[in-house]
């Protein structure tokens, strides 16, 4: 992680702008360490959505009355915010979906079904979320292509790039699907390097940026990927909206994934032609108000500054790694701080993650216990599940302290 000169954020002050933290005081007040699962929402986002419903709501791209124009303009304004957020070359490359999973399925179906066949390899990694793993497994199965995964090495659970040459011998690699930041252990993958390698193989590179977009600046023009997906609800926005960025040439060459209203140019009994990008891939009434909310979330993130957010998370993660490291019998998975997002997965000897999370939950500390939608990775780690704490711009050191206290309590119960 780069050392930047970003201004330091005041997490306690930001936290006051999130209504959820105003609830239930006392010892059980919420310590929310599950932001990589889904983030909480600032009042600015909630207000933007409420105001839009109250003053500007109509369906988009359909009506000719003034209200409909206003709604459509706000909807497209939000698309412009997303474009600028990831520095895409054009708004035509920003496609709204229901969530990241749908964005990744869109690529697998619309690109993969047409471009994969016997002798080809669809390559993922052992660190992938099921949403960037299973679609490619399914499409490989349907097209007769080989499905393979870049393995991790034992020590820090990072991708073992020494295996790439060997994998390349298994067939013509057509697609590499890889996450920027892994969601269960926080591993930061060398995506630009991998994308360059993929291109050398004649493959496209599909990047799952769900755990990166909320936390660090992304520039799709320098990243080297061909598709990038992320999801609104992890970046202070509402549920029900995801984003797919894709290179225009590729998007142009693809058939749509969903078809129907809003994405067509002309329909007749004989033939249907498609609307222009990005609408070609946005069938049906889109998540209009969710897009407004996502736009407001991006405004909020920009105002705080992604560099500041990243710096804050590095600080919190460093503190948490130190404090958790003091606990006897606790094993932390994943890489050192320099190559880690604000995520820590661990095992507490003798206490199952469910029980850890339950005891923490009873103390008002919210963490996630489970396989985090990365079952192949869990198998590789030799565990059924881990306990995971994850951080964001509103995370306070005292939340880490409460996590540590809760873990001592869990140890005592199960001693």
């Amino acid at each position, binding site marked *: 992680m780069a050392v930047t000169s970003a201004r330091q954020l005041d997490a306690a002050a930001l936290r006051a702008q999130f209504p959820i933290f105003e609830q239930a005081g006392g010892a059980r007040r919420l310590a929310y360490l599950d932001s990589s699962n889904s983030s909480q929402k600032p009042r600015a986002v909630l207000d933007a959505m409420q105001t839009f419903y109250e003053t500007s709501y109509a369906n988009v791209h359909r009506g000719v009355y003034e209200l409909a124009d206003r709604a459509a303009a706000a909807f497209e304004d939000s698309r412009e915010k997303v474009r600028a957020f990831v520095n895409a070359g054009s708004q035509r490359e920003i496609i709204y979906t229901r969530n990241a999973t749908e964005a990744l399925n869109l690529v697998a179906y619309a690109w993969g079904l047409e471009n994969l066949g016997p002798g080809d390899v669809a390559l993922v990694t052992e660190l992938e979320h099921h949403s960037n793993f299973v679609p490619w497994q399914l499409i490989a199965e349907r097209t007769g292509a080989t499905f393979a995964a870049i393995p991790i090495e034992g020590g820090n659970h990072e991708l073992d790039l020494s295996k790439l040459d060997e994998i390349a011998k298994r067939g013509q690699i057509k697609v590499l699907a890889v996450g920027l930041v892994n969601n269960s252990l926080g591993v930061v993958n060398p995506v630009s390097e991998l994308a360059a390698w993929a291109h050398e193989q004649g493959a496209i590179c599909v990047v799952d940026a769900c755990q990166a977009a909320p936390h660090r600046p992304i520039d799709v023009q320098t990243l080297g990927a061909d598709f990038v997906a992320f999801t609104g609800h992890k970046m202070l926005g509402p549920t029900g909206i995801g984003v797919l960025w894709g290179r225009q040439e590729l998007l142009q060459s693809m058939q749509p994934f969903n078809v129907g209203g809003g994405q067509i140019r002309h329909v007749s009994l004989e033939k249907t032609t498609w609307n222009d990008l990005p609408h070609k891939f946005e069938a049906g009434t889109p998540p209009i108000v969710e897009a407004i909310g996502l736009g407001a979330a991006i405004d909020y993130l920009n105002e705080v500054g992604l560099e500041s957010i990243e710096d804050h998370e590095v600080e919190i993660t460093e503190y948490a790694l130190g404090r958790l490291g003091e606990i006897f019998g606790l094993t932390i998975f994943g890489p050192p701080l320099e190559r880690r997002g604000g995520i820590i997965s661990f095992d507490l000897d003798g206490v*199952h993650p469910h029980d850890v999370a339950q005891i923490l939950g009873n103390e008002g500390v919210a963490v996630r216990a489970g396989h985090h939608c990365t079952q192949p990775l869990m198998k590789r780690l030799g565990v059924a599940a881990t306990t995971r704490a994850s951080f964001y711009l509103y995370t306070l050191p005292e939340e880490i302290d409460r996590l540590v206290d809760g873990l001592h309590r869990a140890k005592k119960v199960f001693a």
Partner: protein
Amino acid sequence: MAFDEMYREVILDHYKNPRGHGVIEGADAEADGQNPLCGDEVSIYVQFGADNETIEDVKFRGRGCAISQAATSMLTEMVTGRKATAIAEMPRDELLEEVGIPLSPVRLKCALLGLGVLKVALHRAKGTPLPEEWAGMDELKLT
């Protein structure tokens, strides 16, 4: 929920010293099950008595949280000596009463994992009915 209530002594005792823990080689009935939410696993083995109906011995093996493992341990005590048909009909509340702690919907799945696997094992060996709520487990295979 007070946390001492959740991890009351009897739960922790069954978790730390599970009854009926192990494998029966050549069991008359057996099945594996997994909680898709957390990946917890339970395998159950049943040996019938001379009447080929009464559960004479039942053992389990698995990995999981205290709730899932303790509930399965309690289950082995509850079903030994009873007929397969009776267990196939055993309502889940009978086990939940024995477990005796308030459970959230997610933790309910932990507590009921063993009972579901046992019902699947009996269904496969004896053709006892498998009510809909358990049917999904019959399709699960452990890898």
